[in-house]
């Protein structure tokens, strides 16, 4: 066990955990931030995606020891008060969610994509989002929502 200082949603948090603890479990078990979801634990489904220095990252594969000093944004940090991020708004506009479990990860990857590439082509959207599994099969709506968000940015 060691003490790690993490910058999460612009706040510095201290946790005392084993160095190999994935950021996902630090967020969920130690910081009570449940937006990043556990789906597979091996970086295959994308449900745990957070932004690390602005880049969509699988938090289930990122040990806490490698996350110190980096800027972590979880879905809880996207909205500014009542003002949702355009990607969140687009998700609501298209009423994307069915069970909704994968959607926070999908949203985080979309935010990461649009911050680097505000006007992605269909192929670029697919390439970015293909690392995610939506078991309910809302892909058609996710595609549309990313498009809509890109028009709003």
């Amino acid at each position, binding site marked *: 066990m060691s003490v790690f200082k993490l910058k999460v949603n612009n706040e510095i948090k201290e946790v005392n*955990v084993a160095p190999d603890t994935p950021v996902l479990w630090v967020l969920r078990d130690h910081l009570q931030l449940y937006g990043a979801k556990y789906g597979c634990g091996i970086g295959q489904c994308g*449900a745990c995606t957070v932004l690390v220095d602005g880049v969509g990252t699988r938090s289930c594969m990122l040990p806490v020891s490698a996350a110190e000093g980096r800027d972590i944004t979880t879905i809880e940090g996207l909205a500014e008060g*009542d003002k949702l991020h355009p990607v969140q708004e687009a*998700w609501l506009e298209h009423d994307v969610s069915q*069970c*909704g479990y994968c959607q926070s990860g999908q949203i985080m990857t979309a935010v990461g994509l649009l911050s680097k590439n505000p006007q992605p082509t269909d192929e670029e959207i697919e390439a970015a989002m293909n690392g995610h599994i939506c078991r309910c099969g809302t892909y058609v709506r996710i595609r549309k929502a990313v498009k809509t968000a890109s028009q709003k940015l």
Partner: protein
Amino acid sequence: MEDIIKTNYNRRSFLKVSAAAGGGLMLGFNWLAGCVPAAKEKTSVAIPDEWYDINAFLKIGNNGVVTIFSPNPEIGQNVKTAMPMIVAEELDVDWSQVVVEQAPLDAAKYRRQVAGGSQSIRQGWQSLRMAGATARRMLMEAAAQKWQVPVEELTTQAGSVIHETSGRQAGYGELADLAATLEVPAEVALKDPKDFSIIGHSTKNVDGPKIVRGEPLYGLDYYEEGMLTAMIIHPPAFGIRPGKVDDSAARNMPGIKDIFVINSKPASAPDQWQKTFAFPEMVAIVGDSTWQVMQAKRAVRVEWERVSPGISTSDYRNDLTALLEVEPAKPARLDGNPEQAFARAAKVVESSYSAPYLAHNTLEPMNFFARVTPDKAELIGPVQTPERLWKTTAEVLDMPLEKVSVQMTRQGGGFGRRLYGHFGVEAAVIAQRTGKPIKLIYSREDDMTYGTYRPAYKVKYRAALDANNRLIGFHVRGAGTHGSPVFANRFPAGAVDNYLAENHNLDSNISTGAWRAPRSNFIAGAEQAFLDEVAEAAGQDPVAFRLTLFERAINNPVGSDNDYDAQRYAGVIRLVAEKAGWGKETPGVYRGFAAYYCHNSYVAEIVDVVMKNAQPQVQKVWCAIDCGIVVNPDAARNQVEGGIVDGIGHAMFSAMTFIEGEPLQKNFDTYRMIRMKEAPREIEVFFVDNGIDPTGLGEPALPPVQGALANALYRATGRRYYHQPFMMPNSELGMALS
């Protein structure tokens, strides 16, 4: 015209409380209030000072805000929005004044709190309307008493009772205290569907804003102070049980509290669960945090003991194939004389189809919270059958039912997996033994290798055509691990003079269960691909060929116990053909058609495939569906889209296979799921508007798309696709043919 419907509740279902109770009845279960920091709970409506319980489905605040309780489990089928919409419609309240809450399990108050069989809306339709309509009537009676006018002179509009002649008007909030003390009316008028202003109008998912903010809605997100985390080690293969457990290394690892073997199987497990308590005995590890428990789990050494044979994919592949050569003792259905028909046929078409075991793979793995003290057991989590879990837990813990409670969280997918609440029982057993509240979490691997799979199926079809290419004989023989997939009384039964359906069952210790659209999820695709072959052999257009058969079933049906309504069936076929412009050829686009009836709904689909880098890509899917009145159209479209993607994905890519009872696919690196690149570019959905009471919607769009896909792939590639997954070449039941 108004339908007069007798109140069909028993009195107990209307728990009326005096105004003084002010919603005290509801206080016990709003667990989310303890889960979500108060500051994050943003409501768009003012919170009332006082709540009045009108009936089990709703309470009204003194300011007119209405809380509607959604009775059934929410697994992504969106009943948490749709069910309250139905109540609100008959209550006649503005949707913006409605707050929706998940009802707890309460078998005395609600009927059938189950998510399964696409039945929530169909079975809840009348009782939800009655709940709204009786409440509206009680509010009107309260106004009649206050104003000393006959109730017949009153009307309602958007949350107010109005007396037009005197110009008086009162909001529901002003009347709720008195209404809550009145008798429930024995008879009540329901709205004419043409007057619906909420039903039939797209309404956003009530949890949508919380989902996009990542709020803790799911079982896996449940947290309370002092809670421990539990995980399990279940046998890694079917047919074995834990023997000697060496936990000496794991026990001393950081954060680990206890390690022990549990047995959670109830003596009187309901039939449906008998097979699905595949692993009654397992090792439980309890600790402070998930990662610590995951590490300890790897350090536990278990010696496994074999109790039944270890089955491999090659075993059931051979057994199912052999079974299909055997004539069963008696047919499931026999019309006419199929043997003669085949003997005099000008042409006989014969093909076999197969599909592998499938895992449900809800993206939220199985989990449950439990707190068990000598006085009570509280369970909170995702389950599709809370009542069954409640009863089973009481039995296993040896506690009276009234001391056990089950509350439902939002659920990260169901697909049938959470019909089998063994994980809830396991959580309770672990909590009882630990003496502390625990949250049980399955790892993805625990989840994927536990079973309750969609069975492996194989089916053989034969069709006899006469010299005029008329279908004169049809024979289907199906076999599956735990039951045949064949529905003997579904189409084309009723449309063919000489018809024979036969079933075989292959027993197995690989546990199976209901998987979205059970049996239909395989047989629809097989049957519809076969009919495509038969139409081709008959030299007929596949749509025209089916419509001819339905003409027969409409005008002069064979037999009397056909499951389907041939008019409605033909209706969706004509609708999708018209919308998609069936018959119009577009260069480079390959079309397949299929139609199917299940869960009381009719679906016809057309799949357009294009070839991209020599790989098939589904470009567009057209779907016509007759599921009666559609409560929430855009959300209904979402369900249909999801069913189509789900059906295409599993038919193309997914399979569970085994060696000596061990599942070879344990996570998403080896179990392939459809992703965005493979999903259709576009899906267009057309609902039949016929005013019929709602029927199933969550499942029926899935089964036929597998057939439409196979038929489109045939046109794109020139070869028939008999064995799922289609993109695993030369495979049968998920295993390469040698």
